[in-house]
């Protein structure tokens, strides 16, 4: 889908194609005909593609910088330790793709084959895909609005030749916006096992986690659980532990009873 005007009423709105801001938009005809509001055929295509993927896990957080990508990478490595388990790691953080760096795959390129895009394989049983592999320089910025990001995510799910996969881990950017909605929407027919939500102990993170939990409820995405990262630090010199470690029980309590 091409770029949309700033005041786009939204493709599924009643005003789609008919609003004042629709004049001159390249997609106006599509929206006015109602075609844009119809279910995206890609959803069925992705359902077919995902038939070879047994488990799909989204790694979410409302909050940025809590360690989603770090956790996703560790989880992928952990699952792939059993060489009979096929693991795929998909990075849908389009603006800030950290996975290539964390996995030590910076500079790798994606190749096309007859069956689609090939993920970059770190091990025989661990394949990775990220927009980071499509950028030619570390300074390249992906300055895209929502619709274009959604298109990329659709391609990642539909056009990557994942093969037979036991676990597909989807790393996401912070927030509750286009990327998250698209991932859930495009995987709607393919059944997502659920979401793991990452947080740090601080209230500033927990308040976003509560929103993320509400997002999951809204889009009917099961929550596998919450992981607390950066739980504390022991000074290497004096061995005094500084931040307090919340037990998972306490954390669950705090999530439902804000400070």
């Amino acid at each position: 889908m091409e770029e949309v005007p700033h005041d786009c009423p939204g493709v599924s709105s009643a005003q789609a194609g008919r609003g004042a801001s629709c004049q001159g938009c390249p997609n106006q005809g599509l929206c006015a005909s109602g075609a844009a509001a119809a279910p995206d055929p890609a959803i069925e295509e992705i359902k077919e593609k995902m038939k070879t993927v047994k488990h799909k896990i989204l790694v979410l957080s409302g909050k940025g910088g809590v360690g989603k990508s770090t956790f996703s990478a560790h989880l992928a490595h952990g699952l792939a330790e059993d060489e009979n388990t096929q693991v795929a790691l998909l990075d849908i953080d389009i603006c800030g793709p950290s996975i290539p760096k964390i996995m030590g795959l910076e500079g790798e390129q994606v190749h096309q084959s007859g069956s689609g895009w090939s993920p970059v394989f770190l091990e025989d049983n661990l394949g990775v895909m990220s927009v980071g592999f499509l950028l030619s320089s570390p300074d390249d910025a992906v300055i895209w609005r929502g619709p274009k990001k959604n298109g990329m995510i659709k391609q990642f799910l539909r056009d990557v030749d994942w093969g037979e996969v036991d676990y597909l881990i989807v790393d996401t950017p912070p927030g509750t916006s286009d990327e998250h909605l698209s991932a859930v929407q495009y995987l709607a027919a393919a059944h997502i096992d659920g979401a793991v939500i990452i947080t740090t102990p601080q209230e500033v993170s927990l308040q976003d986690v509560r929103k993320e939990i509400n997002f999951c409820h809204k889009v009917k995405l099961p929550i596998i659980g919450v992981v607390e990262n950066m739980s504390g630090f022991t000074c290497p010199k004096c061995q005094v532990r500084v931040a307090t470690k919340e037990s998972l029980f306490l954390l669950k309590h705090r999530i439902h009873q804000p400070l």
Partner: protein
Amino acid sequence: MEAAAEPGNLAGVRHIILVLSGKGGVGKSTISTELALALRHAGKKVGILDVDLCGPSIPRMLRVQGKAVHQCDSGWVPVFVDQEQSISLMSVGFLLEKPDEAVVWRGPKKNALIKQFVSDVAWGQLDYLVVDTPPGTSDEHMAVVDALRPYSPLGALVVTTPQAVSVGDVRRELTFCKKVGLRVIGVVENMSGFVCPHCEECTNIFSRGGGEELARHAGVPFLGSVPLDPELTRSLEEGRDFIQGFPESPAFPALSCIAQKILNEAPVGLS
């Protein structure tokens, strides 16, 4: 050449500073808040515009979460966070019915609200308007830069943490600034070393040097390093006025220095 904008609600705002980062969780909101407090302590009137629609952190940091936003003839009245009314704040956090409500909007709807935040908040007379942004280089960033362009913002403070995974994203943010013609005031390296409150040993939890290196690579000023301070975290958790309460903190000199650089670069005379 762009036509001069109708001054409207930003007519009384002397300088606009955006706080950006490609990376999430580096402390944009913290730095925005502390910068505003530091400028206030220098006797200035400051506004904070929080355009992080999915994760609006600032109301809680300044202990004004749950406050209602009122309308006046010129638009929305920002929330004053102090009795002297020297800091005002607008955030989507104030518009939510419940604090845990998730703003699950796609780009176009976010763009529309940001445009409204820029044009329809009755800021009145301000020396500085600090604009806090979410991580990334997408809808919110394009919308706020477009909406603020007619008012010639002073530029952007770009926040990073020292480690490579942050610097990697922040390089892209610097490219974004270049592409949209937004001047970079400088790079701030946050969480730059952790000073143990027990023995004062400084440990570089998140590595070191990345921010300065990045500034050098991009040819922009390096404004300073702010260390990771657990007292600061506690203070922000509890919404205390950090600058007033913790002048002994290792983060205090760093933040004051950054604020002073802004004051020197964009002075505001006695009003």
